[in-house]
């Protein structure tokens, strides 16, 4: 608008319009009232943006700072693991599973072989069951800790990030002691584990369990009653229980809405019904309740880990069937029978019966399902499908974020605890 100087005089300045309303002295010059621009703004977040926790791209339509619409774009990390799996034998697929959720790789390793074992009717040893429970609960903490650190930093709290990553480092070391790798663990095999727990590993775990609750308490003190944190999370991204079920939310995201669905309780596997733990339930289904649920879940996991360590039986870790488990290296080198089994397992693999199997476990992000389909005698799957918890959880983000501010979108996205490696697969 160009500037115009108006000659102003007191007398006669209050000119009446035809409708009896006093007109501004500017009116005779026909300068329009400044219009508020109602055009909606388009904002692109990602795919390279630290707050999207990966290569997620969100295109937002904004009215001022309010989100009218969010369109998520995914697939930047798509590697077609499911297709690759069709070209690999049952055991070779294990290495693909930890590359999906690299924040809790052992849960994925375990869930995959559990579904294959179920399809083949293999009953693993008692020791193996308890070891897998230990590994899965350990990685639940592992996954939740990453969520805790990154979510806190998204809303400006830097200290919990450092605390949680210090604790994660200890779990990394446990991973490394067990498998030789920190992230790409590939610890499981059909019928057992790659290796039994090394000597002293449980002491390392105990050491971690001693220190971890104290760190958790400190983070708890920093965040739970923190007015800034509460202001950023309470009432943000709320969803009712019924709608959450309909949207397919699982894991802590669903439980925060007050639905007590936990695969460990509702479809128990590996004797979870005999462990003493409670499933934390939220009330409001907002970001704050999701935070509380995850915090409490970590404490419950610590309890389960103690119970599992107490009941860990001795005995073999792998099933005795030589057509499933590899013989020891010594046997393979000295005993003809074992050498043949070794050769057959490596070159051909384990034949599966015809059928399909869907096996769900409670992953750190939600219900992690592994669906395998085979035909008679197949050493490779016809179809291997991961029911990705983050993928389904993320699909609700548009519904959760609409009507909130852009900064709330960041919080909502963080509170869903997604991992793009598994969403894009």
């Amino acid at each position, binding site marked *: 608008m160009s500037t115009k100087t108006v000659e102003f005089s007191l007398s006669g300045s209050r000119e009446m319009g035809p409708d009896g309303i006093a007109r501004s002295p500017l009116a005779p010059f026909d300068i329009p009232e400044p219009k508020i621009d109602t055009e909606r703004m*388009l904002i*692109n977040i990602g795919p390279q943006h630290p707050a999207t926790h990966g290569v997620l791209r969100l*295109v937002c*339509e904004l009215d001022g700072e309010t989100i009218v619409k969010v*369109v998520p774009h*995914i*697939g930047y990390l*798509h590697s*077609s693991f*499911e*297709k*690759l799996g069709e*070209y690999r034998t049952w055991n070779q697929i294990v290495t693909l599973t930890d590359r999906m959720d690299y924040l809790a790789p052992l849960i994925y390793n375990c869930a995959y072989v559990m579904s294959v074992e*179920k*399809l*083949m*009717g293999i009953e693993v040893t008692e020791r193996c069951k308890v070891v897998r429970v230990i590994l899965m609960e350990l990685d639940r903490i592992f996954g939740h800790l990453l969520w805790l650190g990154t979510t806190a930093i998204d809303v400006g709290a830097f200290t919990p990030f450092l605390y949680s990553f210090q604790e994660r480092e200890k779990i990394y070391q446990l991973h490394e002691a067990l498998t030789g790798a920190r992230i790409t663990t590939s610890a499981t095999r059909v019928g057992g584990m790659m290796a039994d727990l090394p000597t002293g590993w449980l002491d390392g775990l105990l050491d971690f369990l001693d220190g971890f609750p104290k760190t958790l308490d400190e983070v708890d003190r920093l965040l739970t009653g923190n007015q800034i944190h509460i202001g950023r999370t309470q009432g943000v991204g709320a969803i009712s229980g019924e709608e959450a*079920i*309909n*949207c*397919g*939310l699982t894991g802590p995201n669903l439980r925060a809405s007050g639905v007590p*669905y936990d695969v460990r309780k*509702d*479809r128990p596997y590996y004797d979870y019904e005999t462990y003493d733990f409670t499933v934390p339930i939220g009330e409001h289904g907002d970001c704050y309740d999701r935070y509380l649920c995850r915090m409490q879940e970590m404490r419950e996991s610590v309890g389960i880990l103690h119970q599992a360590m107490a009941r860990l039986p001795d005995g073999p870790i792998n099933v005795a069937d030589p*057509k499933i488990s590899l013989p020891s290296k010594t046997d393979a080198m000295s005993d*003809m*029978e074992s050498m*043949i*089994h070794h*050769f*057959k397992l490596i*070159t*051909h693999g384990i*034949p*599966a*019966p*015809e*059928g*399909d199997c*869907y*096996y*769900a476990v409670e992953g750190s992000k939600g*219900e992690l*399902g592994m*669906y395998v*389909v085979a*035909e*008679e*005698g197949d050493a490779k799957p*016809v*179809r291997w*499908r991961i*029911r990705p918890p983050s*993928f*389904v959880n993320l*699909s*609700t983000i548009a*519904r959760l974020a609409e009507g909130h501010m852009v900064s709330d979108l960041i919080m909502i996205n963080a509170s869903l605890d997604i991992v793009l490696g598994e969403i894009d*697969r």
Partner: protein
Amino acid sequence: MAEHDESGLEAVEQGPLTADAREPRNVASTGDPSDHPSVAALLDRFGDAVLRHRVNAGDQWVVWIDPSRSREILGWLKDDSEHVYDMMSDVTGVDYGRGRPVEVVYQMFSTRHKRALRIRCPLPLDALEIDTICDLWQSANWLEREVFDLFGVTFRGHPDHRRILMPDDYAEGHPLRKDFPLRGRLSRAEQTRRALAQEVERYYLADDLGHGVPQEVQAKLASQARPDARPDEGGT
């Protein structure tokens, strides 16, 4: 198939195939439908639409149904108070190849009755279409898009029917189909050429917000002759 070899030496000579492969333990059976109330009810009520049923992997019930009535049956399973499958855990596809039908698989769970059920709908290759269920379960929205993207199954009535993992203008088909070669249909050189020729600006336009593929891309895709898009079509 031979019994387990005494010496094992023969097996080496016979090579790595199924000569002495372990007899697969058959953990599947036709089962007794009265064990699973929903299966019994389906047989009772939709007997003509139930193609077959089976128990796989020990205790997992699978029911094959007529795809033309899938929506009706799935909707009934969701709403009937005896069943209430309120959670659609997963929607996915299975392609066996060799001309066999592509199957759409629904994993359902009832949080009220703590029961799981798997429904499979075989779709013949010349009619890869099925009704959408994403108005019944919102969780099916992205899952159906993924099945469309990777298997080429069209979901009638889906509100946002476009690819999800692959780019909107992906021209090589549907990757999880068995006739899709592992490396894709185009040569690496052609894939690189196309990637470099992409208009990256297009991905930042406002029409991204609209549902569906933008008009000009649709026109481009329609005009593109398919045969030249698959110069090195190989086996699986």
